[in-house]
């Protein structure tokens, strides 16, 4: 089955006539490692489903690149706040490894929301999922020790440990690269 359809159908059931209108709206985007997918300061045109590869979302702060999240196969990617508000984004999204995304333009997704009830439901469900994810991360950031944050990350996304540079994971977990490698050495 089409990977886009399979991803959407994790949330809602699509009938073939609906899919025949949804499918053609998604285009394939290919990035080799380090390529910028979305640029801070620009309006995000696409909402992406990840087919393969790892991407990282970050924003510049105090001369550093603060990493706020990763995406990988089957998850969402892009500067989602800018996609929704149609205002210049605050995040860079970059390919960590070679990446294939399926993207849909804002106007196409809005039209599908309008025309196909199950698509609107899909939109609501992924937003809910994103919100729960942000809330979980917020609590973890504020209440867990560096060691606990490290352990949760490894338990949740073991394969990112191999694919993503350590300094990006350290930044994501809000710890220094030194703390990160100390924890890593202790745990292995």
């Amino acid at each position, binding site marked *: 089955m089409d990977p886009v359809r399979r991803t959407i159908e994790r949330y809602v059931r699509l009938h073939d006539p609906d899919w025949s209108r949804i499918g053609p709206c998604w285009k*394939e*985007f*290919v*990035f*080799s*490692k*380090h*390529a*910028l*997918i979305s640029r801070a300061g620009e309006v995000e045109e696409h909402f992406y489903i990840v*087919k393969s590869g790892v991407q990282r979302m970050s924003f510049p702060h105090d001369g550093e690149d603060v990493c706020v999240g990763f995406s990988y196969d089957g998850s969402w990617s892009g500067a989602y706040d800018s996609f929704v508000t149609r205002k210049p984004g605050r995040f860079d999204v*970059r*390919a960590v490894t*070679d990446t*294939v995304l399926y993207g849909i333009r804002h106007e196409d997704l809005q039209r599908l929301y309008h025309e196909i009830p199950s698509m609107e439901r899909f939109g609501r469900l992924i937003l809910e999922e994103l919100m729960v994810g942000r809330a979980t991360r917020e609590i973890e950031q504020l209440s867990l020790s560096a060691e606990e944050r490290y352990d949760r990350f490894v338990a949740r996304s073991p394969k990112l440990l191999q694919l993503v540079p350590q300094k990006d994971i350290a930044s994501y977990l809000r710890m220094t690269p030194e703390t990160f490698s100390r924890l890593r050495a202790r745990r292995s």
Partner: protein
Amino acid sequence: MDAITLIDDLSATLRTQMERARIVRAMPAGTLLHRPGPEKWNALEIFEHMCLSSGIYLRGLERVFDERANALPFNADFKPGLLGDYFTKGMLPKADGTIRNRMKTMRMFDPPRNSGASQESIDRFIDLCERFSELLERARKTDLNRMKVSSSLGPILRFKAGDAFRFPVAHQQRHFLQLERTLQTGQGAH
């Protein structure tokens, strides 16, 4: 060498390169991302590399054409500069299609160590070739000996305008051979 023949040859080469680029643009993701080896470039990175390198000559040519091209009378003869000719010939593949001297890429021109590449790199490459072609049309009425452009080594090495066309096009020829090898090993890859 005859300036008009040179311009015709370069225009034809650029047309062939653009046609090929459009075909590659439509190839599947697995082919575009395929690396013949762990440290080798994929097709997208080859295009990005050509954009980074040729872009220097294109911008230099556009600037000098805007400043001077209209004021110079047509010169039917182009005499390559000593170094411009040497570097261009070093770039060109041999008659049997093999590459002369392998060279190490400067960091600033190495996509995997910089800002990566995407399908958009191919779009920009096609646009770059179109702009070279437009300049070549303007070159039919001016003097390619008397305008100078900084090379990718910077102002320490300046090429005559004619060489600033010849060198990047030859460099692209070289990378189109690499592109074909890369695509060949990547067929059926996903």
